[in-house]
């Protein structure tokens, strides 16, 4: 065998994959590790989403408290708080109409206050967002 023809020959030898008797075991082990890492990622994202949601809600609550504290002195603050309340009412009406569409007409959300409705809507949105992120992470 000459030097010139040796390189292609050794390339071919390297390209020839050896057969392994435990291939199935190797593949099963890899699948288990893949599942484990996926579960870990789902759990980590869920926890991160939950922590992030709690922090976000807490921050918004503290903003609300500031509104309440400054409402006596500032004229603009009550209008901001009022806007928040209106947003809650709008959200509540949207949820009410959605529930009516799915046949839950017996539930009357209009008895809830504007702020309660706002928090309920925010809670539902956070939950939906968290579920979406988890679903997305599973697909990725």
């Amino acid at each position, binding site marked *: *065998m000459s*030097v010139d023809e*040796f*390189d292609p*020959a*050794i*390339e071919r*030898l*390297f*390209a*020839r*994959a*050896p*057969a*392994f008797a435990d*291939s199935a075991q*190797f*593949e099963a*082990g*890899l*699948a288990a*590790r*893949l599942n484990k*890492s996926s579960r870990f990622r789902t759990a980590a994202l869920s926890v991160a989403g939950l922590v992030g949601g709690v922090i976000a809600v807490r921050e918004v609550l503290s903003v609300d408290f500031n509104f309440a504290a400054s409402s006596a002195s500032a004229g603009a603050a009550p209008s901001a708080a009022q806007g928040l309340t209106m947003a809650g009412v709008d959200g509540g009406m949207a949820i009410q109409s959605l529930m009516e569409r799915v046949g839950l007409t017996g539930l009357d959300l209009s008895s809830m206050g504007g702020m309660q409705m706002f928090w309920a809507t925010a809670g539902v949105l956070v939950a939906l967002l968290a579920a979406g992120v988890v679903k997305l992470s*599973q*697909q*990725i």
Partner: protein
Amino acid sequence: MAKPLRDLHDVELAALSAAGGRREFGELVRRHSPAVRGLLRRMGAQPALADDVAQDAFLLAFEKCAEFRGEGTFGAWIKRIAARLYLKRRSRDARYVAELESDEVAPSVDSVGRMDLDEALKGLTEAERLCVSLCHGAGLSHPEIATAINLPLGTVKSHVKRGLDKLRVRLEPGSVAHGSASHVG
């Protein structure tokens, strides 16, 4: 009707894997894991370590499947990932290198006195074996090998040349039988 997995090209399987397809990725593993495991052993990894690194390489490939565009073959891509992971692991664990250097296995030959590649590689030094495997098994260029194993380019070229010279002698039909006879005599 969807094509059976075995009829799909690697590029199609990689694209489906990038979208989260576990079954499609499983098919890629079935196709390429023997080559990856074989390469790592040829580079000098002990079987348990070779399999561990091979699994790490496939896990990484699953994460990065979207980066595989099909410019080269999937086999070459995953082998490069595995080779680089092995080098990282190897440089991290100096003790393992010492084990390898002291590991001597008597080569076996076939009926016409010719070794197979795996046996022939055992006759090379650690550095020669690594450089030849990285060059001809993982498809890395000499400069890439030099960077990966932190050796001067000239040294890498020498290791590859010396390793190939030794392999040429050992893989020649009947060469081992003659060599053994001269030792006995």
